[in-house]
């Protein structure tokens, strides 16, 4: 798919020559598929160079268009760092409970305060899987546009409704890196604050990557065709992991909402365990896991998501299941984990 698109979709889609028209046709087809998957019209969907770029552009452009009303960006404390970076000093943070969900009353109160340009709330958390109440949040937002970062859930969970702007990232559903989605509902005012060109209504400047956009559309179609079965399996396997990790290891904190969550993500923290040692030991056993522990980050700060929830940040492991994950791997993980944790604890006399 990707290789044939490199052969036929290399040209500039805004040019009128044959190759340009072919490229334009491929881009239009990919956009139609991606727009359908997120529930918008093709002319409401803009393609960016990453999910992060989609957040930077979308949130900035919506905020700028509301400057007569205000500049504040109300957001949950557990948004992706791209949202936090974009909001910057204009950000008004709304805290979350221990499973990582915002309190709608508090969120609504913050949004109704004077001077709010936009409200940002993720569809579900990328680290702990907890879903946010998007439809209800859209209602409490009233006239304030709701910006939804849906990178963690597109392809894995139903697309929420009620938002003004939604972003996603192809690599999160098994597509290539370098393709982001920025969906802007008709009627939502945007004002790009950077040099604009004729591409993507000025929201994503530069020559588009048509082969990768096609690959992203094909990957999403494939993922959605398998979604019913994959999501059911993943949900059940994460349930089993939650139970077996908690039962098999003393002093472990399994975090996030056990039910109202993404099907494929799990995070837990083991008391007295060094996160880096845990990730390295699991890697040696063939498991590629992530961690929100400070010692595993370049900044030596713990995950802002875990900190906002007030849950243990050291000894943290984040598991994401993919389409090739098997039940045997789940079972083997549950079998080897207690011994690894025991060994690391024994090294520090715990």
């Amino acid at each position, binding site marked *: 798919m990707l290789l044939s698109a490199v052969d036929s979709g290399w040209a500039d889609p805004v040019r009128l020559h044959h190759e340009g028209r072919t490229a334009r046709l491929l881009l239009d087809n990919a956009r139609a598929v991606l727009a359908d998957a997120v529930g918008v019209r093709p002319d409401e969907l803009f393609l960016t160079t990453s999910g992060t770029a989609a957040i930077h552009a979308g949130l900035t452009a919506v905020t700028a268009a509301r400057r007569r009303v205000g500049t504040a960006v109300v957001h949950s404390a557990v948004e992706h760092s791209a949202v936090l970076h974009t909001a910057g000093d204009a950000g008004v943070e709304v805290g979350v409970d221990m499973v990582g969900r915002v309190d709608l009353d508090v969120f609504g109160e913050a949004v109704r305060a004077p001077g709010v340009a936009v409200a940002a709330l993720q569809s579900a958390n990328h680290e702990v899987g907890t879903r946010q109440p998007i439809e209800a949040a859209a209602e409490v937002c009233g006239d304030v546009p709701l910006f939804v970062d849906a990178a963690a859930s597109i392809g894995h969970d139903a697309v929420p409704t009620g938002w003004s702007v939604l972003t996603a990232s192809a690599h999160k559903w098994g597509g290539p890196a370098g393709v982001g989605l920025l969906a802007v509902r008709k009627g939502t005012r945007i004002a790009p604050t950077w040099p604009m060109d004729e591409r993507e209504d000025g929201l994503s400047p530069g020559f588009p990557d048509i082969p990768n956009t096609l690959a992203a559309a094909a990957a999403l179609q494939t993922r959605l065709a398998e979604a019913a079965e994959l999501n059911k399996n993943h949900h059940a396997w994460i349930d089993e992991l939650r139970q077996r990790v908690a039962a098999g290891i003393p002093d472990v904190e399994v975090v996030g909402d056990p039910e109202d969550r993404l099907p494929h993500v799990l995070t837990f923290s083991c008391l007295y365990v060094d996160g880096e040692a845990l990730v390295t030991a699991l890697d040696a056993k063939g498991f590629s896991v992530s961690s929100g522990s*400070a010692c595993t980050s370049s900044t030596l*700060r*713990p995950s802002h998501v875990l900190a906002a929830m*007030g849950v*243990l940040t050291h000894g943290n492991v984040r598991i994401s299941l993919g389409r090739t994950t098997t039940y045997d791997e789940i079972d083997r993980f549950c079998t080897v984990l207690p011994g690894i944790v025991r060994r690391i604890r024994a090294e520090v006399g715990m």
Partner: protein
Amino acid sequence: MNVDLDCRGLLCPLPVIKLAKALPTVAIGDTVTVLADDPAAATDIPAWCRMRSQDLLSADENRYVIRRVS
């Protein structure tokens, strides 16, 4: 009575491990004061107190006072 525990310069989980080892050495009702400047301690020391059902009396800048209750 209070025991001081200087964990400045140590990274998590070390401050929490030292706290876990020190608390049983004080009598029930007594306190341990932990000095810790690792940013993770700000989340992990309160989380440890919650998981272990011990009292976090105060958590000021890099200074945590924990009372042994069991």
